[in-house]
């Protein structure tokens, strides 16, 4: 069978790997549509024919469920993201807060807190460090965490509060240095999935995702695995 999956851009690469393994194991084909979660939400509400929705946050799947879209009770956290402070250059990164307090940089890239969970997490962490107001003039916001990473990756922002998954997936040529932001400083970056219509293949895929093989991939990619955050 064929499963159509709508996945948040930041999780696309990881999901592709898992889907590859799944196809090899089960024979079901997986069609992946990558986009921003906001777009997917609008599309699903307007009748897009996806089987599973992997959102970048917990809010949109919940909203869909409220509106009676999707298989009731199928919503769950498939991955929990971690926030990392990253620079493409070489630097000694001990405590991320120290780096930021030192202030010897012009730009810090974050994802837009209004649009992206990673952005919201970055805001919370900065507030926890009491740097939020002080750093305002230096903040540049990407539409999503992907863009925040690009700001840092192109060197236009010296530092970025980005997803750990991105840091780990970076190109081998880009050396970079990073430190993980303690998960206690922000609400968990829970990415939820929702089964949109019942199908054997869909359920099989979700089961596969919860399995050990997938958990390994998730960990390597920088996520905490489902239900284990």
């Amino acid at each position: 069978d064929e499963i159509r999956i709508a996945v948040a851009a930041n999780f696309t690469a990881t999901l592709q790997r898992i889907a590859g393994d799944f196809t090899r194991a089960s024979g079901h084909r997986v069609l992946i549509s990558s986009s921003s979660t906001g777009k997917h939400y609008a599309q699903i509400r307007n009748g897009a024919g996806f089987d599973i929705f992997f959102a970048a946050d917990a809010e949109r799947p919940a909203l869909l469920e409220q509106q009676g879209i999707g298989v009731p009770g199928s919503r769950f956290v498939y991955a929990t993201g971690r926030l990392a402070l990253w620079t493409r250059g070489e630097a000694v990164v001990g405590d991320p807060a120290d780096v930021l307090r030192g202030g010897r940089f012009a730009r810090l890239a974050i994802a837009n807190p209004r649009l992206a969970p990673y952005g919201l997490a970055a805001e919370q962490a900065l507030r926890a460090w009491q740097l939020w107001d002080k750093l305002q003039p230096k903040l540049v916001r990407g539409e999503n965490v992907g863009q925040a990473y690009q700001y840092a990756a192109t060197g236009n922002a010296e530092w970025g509060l980005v997803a750990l998954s991105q840091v780990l997936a970076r190109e081998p040529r880009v050396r970079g240095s990073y430190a993980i932001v303690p998960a206690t400083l922000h609400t968990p970056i829970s990415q939820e999935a929702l089964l949109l219509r019942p199908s054997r293949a869909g359920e099989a895929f979700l089961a596969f995702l919860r399995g050990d093989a997938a958990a390994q991939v998730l960990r390597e990619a920088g996520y905490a695995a489902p239900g284990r955050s």
Partner: protein
Amino acid sequence: MNPATVSPSDLQALWVTLRLAALTTLSLLLLGTPLAWWLARSGSRLRAPIEAVVALPLVLPPTVLGFYLLLAMGPNGPLSGLSMAFTFAGLLLGSMVYSLPFVVQPLRDSFAAVSEQSLEAAACLGAGPVNRFFNVVLPLARPGYVTASVLGFAHTLGEFGVVLMIGGNIPGQTRVLSIAVYEHVETLDYARAHLLSAGLLIVSFALLLVVYASGVGRKVVR
């Protein structure tokens, strides 16, 4: 991540893109011609408002435009009966709306530049309106058609916001090259993004070079 090669799915995207761009351009040239002609020659009081409406798709960010198109195509929208959303046909419609001004405006300008005298002379030689159009207007408006085609085609190639919104990025159907490149950038697969971008640029450049060097877009010397 493997060394940058073009994956089959990218090739598929390329094919969808070329089809989309070609069909969009073609349809817009066909539809845009009578519209542009009317805009260039009519003295009607509706001319200015319609001219303004034609330019409006430009004003909205593509994603937002796509959002409204999606609403229109959705279950409660006026176009719901056609079930266009997430299909190639829907993509085509979206691209056409988005690129409309780039095709209509150059056509209109080039139609306006066709001298009344040439048309009158053709009429006196027995050429009816259709005949005049094909044998006088079309050859004289050629630069406008080239500009319209280039702008329309290239704009659809690079288009992405509308397409992503209406199309839903479905491989083989609505996943176009621009989305593929975007995805590669988003998923940090820069090498492949560079490769695709460079390919896109080189092929487009070659194509444009042929068009421009052939002189097909140059004005007939008067």
